[in-house]
């Protein structure tokens, strides 16, 4: 008891954690809570989507046909692969295979950029046809209210998701840097676990966006 008190008093800026293991548990719990919270950010958009789909089912079905299915599907493939590589990078770090981890992280980033590229291609295509959100919507082939709402939602959902992809990519680049500098190692790699979890959540969101925005017609 007294030794512990002395230890407590002597530390200048003590970490609140008595053991490093607790820090890891705390961070893991925190990221899960954060991911749950993050999902609720999308939840509102999903709820709006279902609500408007209930009101404008037919319009939504027509409008979804104007989203490029091949881009959406390719992007699904791209994001799932990147998610796999993120998991693989963690696996490699745990096994102490640094080069493999670096390669996997590079793959994650490359695929993420590829996703964003395809997404911008699709945005460009849409915008050039006048498929834009809200008041800027001038697509004459689908003049219905439902179609405009569908595309407004499309922009909000994919835009918010793309924002998360960008954040995720920055985290991945940072992790790449750390692994490269051997700061993230076999012994200490909790940040990689957290980053990968975030990236997987981004993937899961897209897994639902794909059918909602491209497939269900």
């Amino acid at each position, binding site marked *: *008891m007294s030794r*512990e008190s002395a230890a*407590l008093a002597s530390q200048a800026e003590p970490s609140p*954690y*008595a*053991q490093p*293991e*607790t820090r*890891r*548990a705390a961070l*893991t*719990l925190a990221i*899960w*809570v954060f*991911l*749950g919270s993050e*999902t*609720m950010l999308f*939840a*509102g958009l*999903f*709820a*709006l989507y*279902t*609500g*408007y789909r*209930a*009101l404008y089912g037919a319009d939504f079905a027509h409008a979804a046909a104007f989203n490029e*299915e091949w881009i959406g*599907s390719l992007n*699904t*493939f791209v994001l*799932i*692969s990147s*998610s*796999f590589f*993120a*998991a*693989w990078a*963690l*696996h490699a770090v*745990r*096994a102490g295979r640094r080069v493999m981890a670096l390669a996997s992280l590079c793959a994650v980033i490359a695929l993420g950029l590829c996703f964003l590229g395809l997404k911008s291609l699709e945005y460009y295509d849409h915008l050039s046809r006048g498929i834009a959100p809200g008041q800027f919507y001038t697509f004459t082939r689908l003049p219905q209210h439902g179609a405009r709402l569908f595309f407004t939602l499309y922009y909000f959902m994919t835009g918010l998701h793309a924002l998360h992809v960008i954040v995720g990519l920055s985290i991945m680049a940072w992790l790449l840097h750390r692994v490269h500098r051997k700061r993230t190692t076999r012994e200490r790699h909790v940040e990689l676990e957290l980053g*990968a*979890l975030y990236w*997987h*959540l981004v*993937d*899961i969101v897209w*897994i*639902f966006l*794909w*059918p*909602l925005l*491209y*497939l*269900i*017609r």
Partner: protein
Amino acid sequence: MATPVSHPVNEPESASGRALRWAFLALLVLTGLSWAGAHAPLGHLHGLFALGVAAIKALVVAFVFMELRHAGFVPRFIALLTLLFIGLMCTGIVADALWR
């Protein structure tokens, strides 16, 4: 005597490389299945099918990639709770949209 230590946390068993590869394969197959379903004559079951497959994919990602199968009660509970609340919100809005 009480000491300021935390509760021991086990290092979660990491997902094995084999499991990751299998999960990836499963995800690719499911993606293909989802795409095929969109072009199959399923009628009004389209939506149900696409979302069902998506749910399975999300579960695979969550349980294998995100290591939920090794995680404790709390992360699983959080995941469940989040799903529950999304469901609630959608139900509330759709119920109002359909029946008013």
